[in-house]
């Protein structure tokens, strides 16, 4: 809560040498009045407490000493000053200059709103924590089950005659292990970013074609374990095929965007990814067919642990950290991420400056 949000410049004003009998109504109506001199300079705050303590005829004689608030005061110290001063309003000073008035009722109202917000946030955090832990166990168990299951099959291959392709098994085990590692890395990266640490970025010449084909190969292998048929394609990169950036981070971002697109794609639909040049940026995009992103979810879509529901109001699988990482990593590479979503298609895209010569500072 910042003090400046509570400063008011609309307050009752009386003159230093006004007669008290002429300003009693103002005090009764507003509980206080600001006292100024001939040059409109602040002289003090007059309250009914002052009028009882010093019942004189002119305002100047009735003023008692009141506390002053400064920009350095914390909310607890402001409350303390209000309680000590018996005053419903106190002046705010910055280096001996009068800035405005803080009214006690506004501070109390602000605190009340803040307490409600924090209470609601704590309830949401509790729910998110519960959901996160249950999702984490699910997300970790899925690749582990695949690894253990297909390892069992491989062990039995030597003993029994099972009609299954060994290479396919090995490939699924490898991809599941990669996915497991990725989940762990994502969690570590996000906790590092949230703790204010910088992630290492390694800027070098990157072949875009290699990134696209690696991703294609990975998702083609994983399509065997999906319960829907989705065609994943990329547009052959034209110029430039080579950029100066962190290829692993770009691949990581695209991985999350494609993985996300798969989750929200209808059966028998297409996912297309690629890149193009716009101004001084290279724009990578991932486009999928499927439901539009609901309006109320768009604002929070890049916040951690926010997950969407499908047609049946079931939460889509995942930890809810993919898009958060995508945003952080895009910013780390000096770019930004955004999306366009209409009735049948959603396109996520992120930009990277083309003219990077030095590593971009962590934001």
């Amino acid at each position, binding site marked *: 809560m910042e003090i400046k949000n509570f400063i008011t410049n609309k307050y009752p004003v009386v003159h230093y*040498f006004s007669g008290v009998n002429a300003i009693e109504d103002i005090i009764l109506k507003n509980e206080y009045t600001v006292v100024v001199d001939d040059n409109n300079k602040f002289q003090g705050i007059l309250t009914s407490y002052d009028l009882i303590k010093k019942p*004189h005829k002119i305002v100047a004689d009735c003023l008692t000493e009141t506390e002053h608030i400064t920009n350095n005061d914390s909310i607890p110290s402001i409350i303390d000053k209000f309680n000590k001063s018996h005053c419903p309003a106190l002046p705010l000073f910055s280096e001996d200059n009068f800035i405005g008035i803080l009214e006690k009722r506004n501070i109390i109202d602000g605190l009340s709103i803040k307490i409600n917000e924090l209470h609601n946030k704590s309830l949401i955090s509790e729910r998110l924590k519960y959901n996160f832990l249950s999702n984490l166990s699910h997300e970790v168990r899925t690749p582990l089950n695949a690894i253990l299951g297909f390892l069992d099959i491989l062990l039995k291959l030597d003993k029994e005659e099972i009609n299954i392709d060994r290479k396919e098994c090995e490939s699924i085990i490898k991809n599941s292990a990669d996915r497991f590692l990725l989940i762990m890395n994502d969690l570590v990266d996000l906790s590092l970013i949230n703790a204010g640490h910088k992630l290492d970025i390694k800027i070098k010449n990157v072949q875009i074609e290699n990134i696209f084909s690696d991703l294609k190969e990975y998702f083609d292998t994983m399509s065997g374990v999906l319960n829907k048929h989705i065609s994943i394609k990329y547009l052959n990169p034209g110029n430039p095929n080579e950029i100066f950036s962190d290829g692993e981070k770009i691949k990581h971002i695209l991985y999350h965007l494609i993985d996300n697109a798969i989750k929200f794609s209808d059966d028998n639909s297409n996912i297309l990814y690629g890149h193009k040049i716009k101004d001084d940026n290279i724009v990578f995009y991932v486009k999928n067919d499927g439901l539009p992103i609901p309006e109320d979810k768009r604002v929070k879509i890049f916040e951690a642990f926010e997950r969407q529901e499908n047609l049946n109001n079931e939460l889509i699988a995942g930890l809810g950290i993919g898009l958060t990482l995508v945003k952080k990593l895009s910013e780390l590479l000096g770019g930004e991420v955004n999306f366009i979503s209409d009735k049948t298609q959603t396109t996520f895209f992120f930009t990277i400056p083309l003219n990077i010569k030095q590593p971009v500072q962590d934001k």
Partner: protein
Amino acid sequence: METATTQKYSVQLSFEEIRLPPFDDILILGKKCPHGKIGVSKSFEFLVPNEFDVFEIDGDPIVDVIFINKRILKKMNKDTIINILKEKVFPFVSECEILKVDFKLRIFYNSIEGDF
């Protein structure tokens, strides 16, 4: 039968000269008297500029400030005057009251001796 009424009036009239402010020497203000230090000081500034000095009385439960004519302060220091007032006058001051004090100071020497 109608009764005729007439209206009459009676005025008691007298007049005398006054001077402002209506005292010469010392003024004592109670803590809750209608006129406070600033109001009285301001009126003195207009009526008799530069004639009175004002002193706040710390620690007294009844008296707020006193105004002393500079003419007296020329002859006796303020602490002596205030101590006299504290002993002889303050016990009779009430909180809501303004009191004027006549403070006629006469200085005399027992004998003045010297060589011819």
